[in-house]
């Protein structure tokens, strides 16, 4: 492992992107930051700009309106970065499959920008905060 990757994995900063979620996954992500789960003890911190982020937490099925913004946010994120698809909708559009407003799933939208993007999936509606932490740990140990 090179030193840059090693140092980035020590403390990943995440940027949260809502690509048309119903807010349920978003609430569970906020839950991660509360004292009960407190992911900051692992060095995971929510930041306000994709330019500061090492990872994108994407929720929602990827609507046509949000897809343009999601691609732009991915372009702005400092590389290397990991994209986490949080929840059933982000993983595979869920119940919105085939809807007239859907451009997703999220991995398809991201791969239009960067075919080699590193994408991790955390399914569930919504995924439990424990599942999200487990997903992040598994993704980091796979790098």
């Amino acid at each position, binding site marked *: 492992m090179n030193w840059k990757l090693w140092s980035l994995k020590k403390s990943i900063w995440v940027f949260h992107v809502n690509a048309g979620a119903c807010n349920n996954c978003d609430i569970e992500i906020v839950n991660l930051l509360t004292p009960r789960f407190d992911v900051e003890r692992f060095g995971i911190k929510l930041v306000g700009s994709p330019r500061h982020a090492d990872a994108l937490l994407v929720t929602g099925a990827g609507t*046509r*309106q949000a897809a343009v913004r999601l691609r732009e946010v991915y372009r702005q994120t400092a590389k290397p970065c990991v994209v986490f698809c949080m929840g059933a909708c982000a993983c595979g559009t869920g119940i919105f499959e085939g809807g007239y*407003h859907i451009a997703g799933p999220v991995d398809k939208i991201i791969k239009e920008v960067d075919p080699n993007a590193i994408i991790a999936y955390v399914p569930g509606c919504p995924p439990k905060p424990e599942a999200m932490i487990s997903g992040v740990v598994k993704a980091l140990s796979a790098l």
Partner: protein
Amino acid sequence: MKQEELDNRLSEIEGELLGVERTADTRIFLSCESEKVYAVCKFLFEELQLRFVISTGVDAEHCFEVLHHFTNDESGCIVTVKAMIGDRETPELESIAPLIPGAEWIEREMHDILGINFRNHPNLRRLILDDDWPEGVYPLRKDVKV
């Protein structure tokens, strides 16, 4: 107002309507011509002081239906003004937004996804479809395959 009083007041406008359907003690449908929707809503909202809840747009294949729902707080009665628009090519209806500002967004939404044109609407811009959605494609119409 009490339910009896509401029933009495509603009988005042029965001549304007095509029919009154009562599915329960506190559920009344007032069918009317699409030209008279504004007048009937004005009567319910200003004279009877009913509260506007929401509107519904339905593609009923042979026509479009627009339903404006009102509620009477004291008895919990829901009064629905039901208009059928027979013209499928250029469906039009008088907007109730100048009367009830709360109806502005739901009418914009119906315009977006069913293509119903609301006359005298103050601001009939696109609301919920994405910016590069093609003009003239209304996704919730029955004959549209997306």
